[in-house]
């Protein structure tokens, strides 16, 4: 008997492995997108798939996002399970019409006769020094479109488990990959991937009693770091990884906030019209009598995504998170 040495794996490797295993398990799974074949994707997330499964299963398409998603619709209508890659967040916008007008509605329009099991993988968020159009947090656009699931992993294990779930889902899934976590590492055994929570469930990443940080994707490591730093201030912060923005896990979120009585939502997306507004409203509506302070938001500024040399001022960092925690009306504790 051989023991498999469990080595650290990156999130990108876990995502690749998820597609590889899904393709091996189900011949209807097809990957398509720009540069996903020979090159293995600009982030190398589809590396090796064309070689292992052939170009009919992992296809380099013409450079046209609406065409990629639009043809995926037809492929899904004929019984395939397409996984499409949008190269970058801001390059996915040409596909929005297909996504909003057809992908999200086809099941509803046809009363369930034409489900579209399509996974749309979108590398998103900033912090990688990308020039304009390479760092957008576009989740609010997708969240505002009924009929889509919007998932975003923040750990290596979730990257694998959640992408498998997305591909297996009979609903269209916008799968947002935090690109600055692509190279984050964790001990993870590709031969025995750990089970992850089901779609739609939030997970407590760090238990705490003083206040709850509600976050997801690229902001999870920021919140965990902030929680560590907060110990010096005497705060024991809980960190909740939302994982799934749609469906939204009101139950887990509210249970957490009721425990601590204080909450801060943290994300890179703009504050105005961003996911934090919806989350804060939901928490306030459901947990009002348990709250010791208003739900606060730490978000990106309401500006077009800044150039790389200035992005650190825009992205929510540890200090900004701690400043928000400090504003949670602790004086009342007296």
């Amino acid at each position, binding site marked *: 008997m051989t023991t498999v040495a469990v080595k650290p794996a990156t999130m990108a490797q876990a995502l690749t492995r998820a597609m590889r295993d899904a393709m091996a398990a189900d011949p209807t799974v097809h990957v398509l997108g720009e540069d996903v074949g020979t090159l293995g994707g600009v982030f190398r997330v589809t590396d090796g798939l064309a070689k292992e499964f052939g170009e009919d299963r992992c296809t380099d398409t013409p450079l046209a996002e609406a065409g990629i998603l639009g043809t995926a619709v037809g492929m899904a209508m004929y019984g*395939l399970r397409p996984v499409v890659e949008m190269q970058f967040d801001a390059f996915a916008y040409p596909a929005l019409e297909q996504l909003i007008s057809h992908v999200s509605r086809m099941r509803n329009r046809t009363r369930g006769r034409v489900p579209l099991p399509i996974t749309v993988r979108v590398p998103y968020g900033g912090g990688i020094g990308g020039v304009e159009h390479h760092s957008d947090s576009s989740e609010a656009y997708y969240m505002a479109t009924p009929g889509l699931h919007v998932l975003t992993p923040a750990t290596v294990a979730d990257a694998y488990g959640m992408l498998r779930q997305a591909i297996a889902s009979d609903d269209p899934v916008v799968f947002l990959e935090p690109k600055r976590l692509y190279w984050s590492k964790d001990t993870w055994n590709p031969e025995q991937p750990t089970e992850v929570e089901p779609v739609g469930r939030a997970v407590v990443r760090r238990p705490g009693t003083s206040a709850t940080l509600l976050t997801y994707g690229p902001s999870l490591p920021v919140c965990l770091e902030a929680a560590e730093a907060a110990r010096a201030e005497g705060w024991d912060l809980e960190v909740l990884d939302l994982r799934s923005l749609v469906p939204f896990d009101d139950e887990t979120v509210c249970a957490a906030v009721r425990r601590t009585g204080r909450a801060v939502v943290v994300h890179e997306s703009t504050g105005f019209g961003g996911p934090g507004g919806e989350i804060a409203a939901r928490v306030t509506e459901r947990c009002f009598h348990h709250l010791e302070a208003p739900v606060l938001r730490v978000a990106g500024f309401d500006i077009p995504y800044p150039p790389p040399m200035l992005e650190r001022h825009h992205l929510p960092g540890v200090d900004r998170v701690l400043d928000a925690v400090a504003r949670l009306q602790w004086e009342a504790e007296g």
Partner: protein
Amino acid sequence: MTVLEQRGAYRPSPPPAWQPRMDPAPLLPDAEPYRVLGTEAAGEADPDLLRRLHAQLVRGRRYNTQATALTKQGRLAVYPSSTGQEACEVAAALALEERDWLFPSYRDTLAVVARGVDPVAALTLLRGDWHHGYDPHEHRVAPLSTPLATQLPHAVGLAHAARLKGDDVVALAMVGDGGTSEGDFHEALNFAAVWQAPVVFLVQNNGFAISVPLAKQTAAPSLAHKAVGYGMPGRLVDGNDAAAVHEVLADAVRHARAGGGPTLVEAVTYRIDAHTNADDATRYRGDAEIEAWRAHDPVQLLERELTGRGLLDEAAIEAARQDAEEMAADLRERMNRDPEPHPMDLFDHVYAGTTSQLREQRALLRAELEAEHERHGEPEGGAR
């Protein structure tokens, strides 16, 4: 010593030889729209096919007038009539085999019905009791697409998937002249050509995108010429000549099925009615133009050819009219029944399962309906 000097003198060499990727000449459309009726070619056409086309044209014309009448009676929210374009609608449906797929736009209800879909179910979108009525898989007809040209990439993807699975299925996608300006038209044609997908694109050039004439839509020599830029053949056909449209489409379908790739067909026709019942066409075109096209009416063209050749007698024409009247009477009768859309259905099929949010909203609506029921004593769609 400079780097260049170290490497030796720079000797310019010619770039690798450029080769054209294909000879564009065979892809070019004819200079004139292809015609069968009134030409020698009509003699070679299958008389049974022509009679079937005729019966369907008569039915189609009647369907258009009946549906338009239903809008005036408030039974349809809107109807984009294809009066004058029946040859394209009918030929598109008849050019396909059972296993093939049709991807219609919102003006193509007639093609959907000619393909075998129930005439009432085909009108669900336009009646407004749901967004769509029929099972797309039953007759292999995609939903009527309202956003222009967005259904074209779907047709390409479906045809591509069929080929990957080893099925010899062809997809025929319909679009109008206005739709050719959309980005999805370009992307669909490009994908189809690159993938050599078994797709036929039928552009019905009916002269107008609501009010905007073709001259403001494109500067191309013809819409069929656009095919050449994608590396696929373009065909130009008289869209009011049912025999010609059927022949060109059937050729393109055969070509696609045999692995020859996609074809773009431009059928030159004319929208006799306004864009919809909500449009006023007198604001952008004159009667003389409409009258000129009425003289080139698709039903009359085929009827004249068939009677002239002794292939259709009065009794057969009467039988076709009778059949169309029966279809119209059935449509009237069934459309005059009040549809009963159920409010609680709104939450079904948003997702494969449901969400806690939708469960809460469902309960809210159910409570509202029950309160309404208590006030008025009438069940509103039934609180299921």
